[in-house]
């Protein structure tokens, strides 16, 4: 049974967004880490990079496969999480907290309305 925090918004591609004023923090959901299991490597975008919503901007590797992470929102990367690069297993143990990927300065706040609510994300993943 996936944990879906109620203070986050979600992308169909299993990323979450925690909004704080005009910036947001991005990571992948409990459902996603459960599907991937054993995360062994995380590759994050460079600080300063500008990304568009839906653009592949990070990679998460499990023992078996590499998965692209798509930015749920547009904007400029202002910070990345060095701890998750050092300890990729954090994505499995703390997907919504310690396993965060990057912080982004929102380029277009209206995009947040296109994201899924916790209920809608729950419906999407079923169960």
């Amino acid at each position, binding site marked *: 049974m996936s944990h879906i925090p109620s203070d986050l918004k979600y992308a169909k591609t299993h990323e979450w967004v925690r909004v704080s004023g005009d910036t947001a923090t991005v990571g992948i959901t409990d459902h996603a880490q459960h599907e991937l299991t054993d995360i062994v490597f995380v590759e994050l975008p460079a600080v300063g990079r500008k990304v568009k919503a839906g653009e592949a901007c990070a990679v998460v590797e499990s023992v*078996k496969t590499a998965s692209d992470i798509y930015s749920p929102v547009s904007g400029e990367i202002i910070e990345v999480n060095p701890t998750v690069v050092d300890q990729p297993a954090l994505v499995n143990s703390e997907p919504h907290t310690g396993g965060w990927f990057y912080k982004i300065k929102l380029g277009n706040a209206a995009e947040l309305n296109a994201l899924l609510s916790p209920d809608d994300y729950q419906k999407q993943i079923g169960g």
Partner: protein
Amino acid sequence: MLKRTALYSAHQQLAAKLIDFGGWEMPVQYTSITDEHLAVRNAAGIFDISHMGEVTVSGLGAEVFLNSVLTNDIRKLAAGQGQYTLMCHPGGGVIDDLYAYRLSEHDYLLVINASRIEADVAWLQAHAAQFTGGGLNLQDVSHNYAAIAVQGPRVKEFIHLVIGGASTSVFKVLAVTELKKNQIAGFHFGGHSLLVARTGYTGEDGFEILGSASMIELLWAGLLAVGQPFGLKPAGLGARDTLRTEVCYPLYGHELNENITPMEAGVGPFVAFDKGNFSGRSVLAQQQANGMKRKLVAFKMTDKSAPPRPQYPIWANGVRVGEVVSGTQSPSLNLGIGMGYVPPILARPHTNIEIEIRGKYCAAVIVPKPIFRK
């Protein structure tokens, strides 16, 4: 519709993550690939290998026939022994790698890769039809067999508690644990016959058990229940792949295919040039004498990087020189490992190479095989 083994419902009950493996719906993992891998290295793991194929070859002509289509020398086998061997087409390329067991003077059992059953059977039948030696009976019996592998240092502590007693056919041992590596014998289990071989694909001690589909679920359940206190865990194809990669066992479709010879793949020791003619011999002998264009090497990543994966390019001295054929993050070593083909001049341990991973050139070094050793 994907094919399912007789253990499908057992996998469902264990909530296995199922994937399409060459047309079969098989468990890639039950809990986590890392956990399952480490269970095999430290205690024991149990694998469903029912998808593999089996072919019986019997009759007075069987020995001569098999020695003409397989690379290893089947005459080395006494009843109750098996050997790793390969089947090549006349150009020297590998049709499959397999195990050949001698069950009696004129009876052999071949255990072949699931993905190659059709190709192997077609090849063997075509050659059997041309065989003039007489006394040859060849049957594809894959659908008659289900199979389980139990692998790990602690398997020998409990397997005899499930498959008890002395052997009942092939040759005599007083207990299943008395089988030596590569030996095979028949045993009884719950009123059924099964074949047990001391073989495996993980680099650990272990056994591979062949039996009928009707009894395999009982055997699986029995082994799981008895083995659990010893640390036995169900293990899927994901762990099977990381385990075999660590010890550099080839996987058909990766290290081996119809365009690669056993010499290039480094399994020359399983080619018996002195036994007489066999399919592929002349090309392999040429390679043995004159060298080859590429060689399989094992490597380790030397800097922190994403894991190497099949088809990633290999670079050396600024030039693209080859390709990765198997790659993963090693659960035992906690770094990226793999195997790939490079020109022979580079195929030496300590040679520095780079693996191109998503546009980055990541440092690696060629190492002797096996990559992991206890």
